[in-house]
């Protein structure tokens, strides 16, 4: 990309940029309310879609029309695999009247002026940009028409736009020609958006715009970034939880081949060398004496993280209190372990810090926060830090805090050359912002008719949202609850007269944070397993049991429809059939209901999932094929967490530190069939990437219960 000039412009003006291959750039004001973060948070809590919260009233450069009549879209959101760039391109194409082949999408560098103050996450990219992006594309289209009208001498109202061409009868002009040689533009008012039925690409299974690059192995990831005269770094960090650096001997490392410099910092030692292999070899020659104040054990953590410990917060309170339980009540206890993100591209960054400026290329979900963190560490203005976001080799919440990029920048500053630093797999596993372990107690009571009279969910969790750099600290004081741990923690069945959900929050001695779907997977496992157990106790069909507890309106009505559809599509039956049984579970997350029916058998003492029927109501599916891909991926990632994955603490360290011992779902664990059905219960796109994770663990547990009589209550599930 050529150099970008940033200017402040008012809401209805374009900013012109000239440069290599560029004729014009559209600048556009924003959609941000005065306090977007607060609004975003409360809307999130209420299961609605937070608005896009980009840079306030700064000039935002979104589209470039290039000389070869293509549109370059500077996306405030990154692509981490969910097909976001494709969905956004479809949205642009349908209002800007260009073909999808004419659109190129890349994450906006911070020096273009587009800085997402939040993150790419929460499954919100398409949902939050749905309205502003259509408005911007439509405005751009009207602007191009207005300029073409001047050049063609024809009234704009008589011009048509299609495939990047403006035409009237036989006269045509490309968009590039229409906006050529313009120096000062006034934007027309935002036109009325087209009715959804008129869209040609929105709602269609368009092939991913990044498909070819990913099939030829193009160098699109942070890991692939290069700069001339680039050096490599490897870093020694404490392996024991809470360890502090006491003394260091770097003499042996300094004399190793290829080593340029060894840098000591507060609690790490970095080795800069000419190659990755040399940096790694020298890293192992650094001798460090660590001060280990306490060798944490797994038992310490299990004892700490229990219902009844930590900060208590009632997150749901309907009907009367349920402090006493009669003999016919039910009480179950559940747990989930520490989980790693384990994305295949390790975290890392390529940084060049020189002459008081920094350029940093990396895979990050938080471009704006990465910029701020680096500026603070280098003590320079944020304007002097340009973050170039690449494609992400997996995100899942694992790139929402990018302190490793700060390390890369500090190392580069030491040598005045570009330094590429990325985690070894061991560093990745030991320095992850883990999914916190959870502990749950669910108590319930049936009424005389065999319906649930009362249900109470107590859930203990480590930090999810607490302490996260993506949320303001004051938020926790305002809300008094960890909104991430809360996801899926409340009981969704509105006809249960007495409902309680109580969060017990404890911060752990190691970092825990966002992991795809947050509390949803474990909370749904606890609640939906208990609901299933109560259906068995009541002698009722678990589908009818659930339907009878849901109201017909709003979210509950949509959940009902999803449950009915799932039971019907899967031909759900309660009993064991041959060597298989079915399991049913449902959840609602950020306003998106999902139900899974799984078919399970036991093979060689292990749970085998043969088929998953998944029904999801994500509103308008901008790209139904990619929505399905997200369902498939969520199901497999959820199965992996439900049946295989587990980090533990051993001798004061988080282990394991490599794939294999950190067991994950592989090809052989993949269901023979995943049957996905989309129900559209809203006319706008809703979150997709996380909600289908919700019911999977519970559905598998419920199938195993029906097949074997065992109620499995601990993740990862293992048969006794």
């Amino acid at each position, binding site marked *: 990309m050529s150099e970008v000039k940033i200017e402040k412009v008012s809401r209805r003006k374009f900013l012109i940029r000239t440069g290599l291959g560029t004729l014009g750039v559209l600048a556009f004001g924003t959609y941000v309310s005065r306090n977007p973060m607060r609004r975003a948070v409360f809307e999130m809590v209420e299961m609605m879609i937070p608005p896009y919260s980009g840079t306030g009233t700064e000039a935002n450069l979104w589209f470039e029309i290039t000389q070869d009549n293509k549109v370059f879209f500077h996306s405030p959101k990154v692509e981490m695999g969910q097909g976001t760039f494709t969905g956004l391109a479809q949205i642009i194409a349908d209002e800007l009247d260009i073909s999808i082949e004419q659109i190129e999408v890349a994450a906006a560098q911070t020096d273009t002026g587009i800085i997402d103050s939040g993150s790419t996450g929460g499954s919100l990219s398409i949902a939050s940009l749905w309205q502003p992006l259509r408005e911007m594309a439509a405005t751009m289209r009207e602007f191009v028409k207005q300029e073409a009208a001047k050049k063609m001498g024809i009234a704009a109202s008589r011009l048509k736009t299609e495939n990047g061409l403006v035409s009237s009868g036989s006269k045509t002009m490309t968009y590039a020609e229409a906006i050529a040689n313009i120096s000062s533009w006034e934007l027309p008012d935002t036109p009325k958006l087209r009715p959804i039925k008129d869209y040609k690409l929105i709602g269609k299974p368009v*092939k991913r715009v990044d498909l070819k690059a*990913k099939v030829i192995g193009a160098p699109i990831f942070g890991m*692939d970034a290069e700069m001339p005269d680039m050096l490599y770094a490897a870093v020694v960090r404490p392996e024991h939880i809470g360890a502090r650096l006491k003394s260091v001997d770097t003499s042996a490392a300094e004399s190793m081949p290829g080593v340029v410099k060894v840098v000591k910092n507060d609690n790490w030692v970095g080795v800069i060398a000419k190659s990755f292999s040399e940096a790694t070899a020298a890293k192992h020659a650094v001798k460090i004496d660590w001060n280990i104040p306490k060798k944490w054990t797994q038992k310490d953590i299990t004892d700490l993280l229990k219902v009844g410990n930590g900060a208590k917060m009632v997150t749901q309170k309907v009907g009367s209190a349920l402090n006493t339980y009669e003999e016919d009540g039910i009480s179950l206890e559940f747990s989930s372990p520490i989980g790693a993100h384990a994305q295949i591209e390790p975290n890392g960054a390529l940084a060049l810090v020189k002459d008081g400026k920094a350029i940093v290329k990396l895979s990050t979900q938080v471009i704006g926060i990465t910029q701020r963190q680096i500026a603070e560490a280098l003590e320079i203005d944020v304007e002097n830090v340009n973050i170039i976001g690449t494609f992400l080799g997996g995100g899942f919440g694992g790139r929402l805090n990018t302190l490793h990029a700060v390390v890369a920048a500090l190392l580069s500053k030491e040598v005045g050359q570009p330094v590429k630093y990325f985690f070894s797999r061991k560093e990745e596993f030991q320095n992850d912002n883990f999914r916190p372990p959870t502990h749950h107690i669910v108590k319930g009571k049936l009424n005389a008719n065999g319906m649930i009279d009362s249900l109470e969910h107590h859930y203990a969790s480590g930090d999810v949202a607490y302490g996260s750099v993506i949320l303001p600290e004051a938020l926790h004081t305002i809300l008094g609850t960890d909104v991430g741990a809360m996801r899926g923690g409340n009981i969704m069945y509105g006809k249960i007269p007495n409902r309680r959900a109580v969060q017990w929050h404890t911060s752990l001695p190691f970092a825990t944070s966002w992991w795809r779907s947050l509390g949803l997977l474990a909370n749904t496992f606890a609640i939906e397993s208990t609901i299933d157990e109560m259906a068995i106790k009541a002698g009722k069909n678990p589908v009818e049991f659930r339907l009878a507890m849901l109201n017909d309106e709003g979210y509950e009505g949509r959940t009902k429809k999803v449950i009915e559809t799932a039971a019907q599509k899967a031909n759900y039956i309660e009993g064991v059939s041959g060597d298989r049984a079915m399991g049913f579970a449902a959840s609602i997350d950020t306003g998106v209901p999902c139900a899974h029916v799984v078919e399970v058998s036991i093979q060689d003492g292990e749970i085998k999932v043969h088929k998953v029927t998944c029904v999801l109501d994500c509103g308008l599916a901008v790209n139904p094929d990619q929505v399905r891909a997200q369902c498939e991926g969520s199901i497999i990632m959820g199965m992996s967490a439900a049946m295989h994955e587990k980090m533990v603490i051993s001798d004061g360290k988080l282990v394991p530190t490599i794939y294999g011992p950190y067991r994950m779902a592989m090809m052989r*664990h993949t269901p023979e069939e995943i049957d996905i059905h989309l129900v559209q219960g809203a006319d706008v796109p809703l979150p997709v990437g996380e909600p289908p994770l919700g019911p999977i663990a519970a559905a598998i547990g419920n199938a195993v219960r029906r097949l074997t009589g065992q109620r499995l209550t601990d993740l990862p599930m293992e048969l006794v």
Partner: protein
Amino acid sequence: MKISFNINGQAQIVDIDGNTPLLWVVRDVLNLKGTKFGCGKAACGACTLHVNGESIRSCSYPVKFVEGKEVVTLEGLSANGTFHPVQQAWIEEVVPQCGYCQPGFMMATAALLEKIPHPTDKDIDENIMNICRCGTYYRMRKAIHRAAAIKQANS
């Protein structure tokens, strides 16, 4: 030490510590970025490429062992400008999500199809041992069957 080998049909000589993993020679010396780093311990398969037609994990394969051998990376899987049947099938089934692990899977699949032209699901389960965090296995399995069909139709 000097090591001579062919990579993607081209003769190549590198002068480097013979114990350097082949992955880093391919990525950082020869600048072929289609082979990815995932774990450095041959556990995830992101770095899979072919040495004399065999699928190997290059992060744990010292470069000295390729002396005189044929190395093929994703970039050399098919002739200029065309897609290998595996790549074509991956496109038709729209397999990649984040895409980072996909080169390793495609290389493992290409090697598998040379040995077992029409693998069963069981063959796939037993031979494709890479890790995909996005969970694209379901589409991959379909794409592997499709690649086998394309390969047969082309031959």
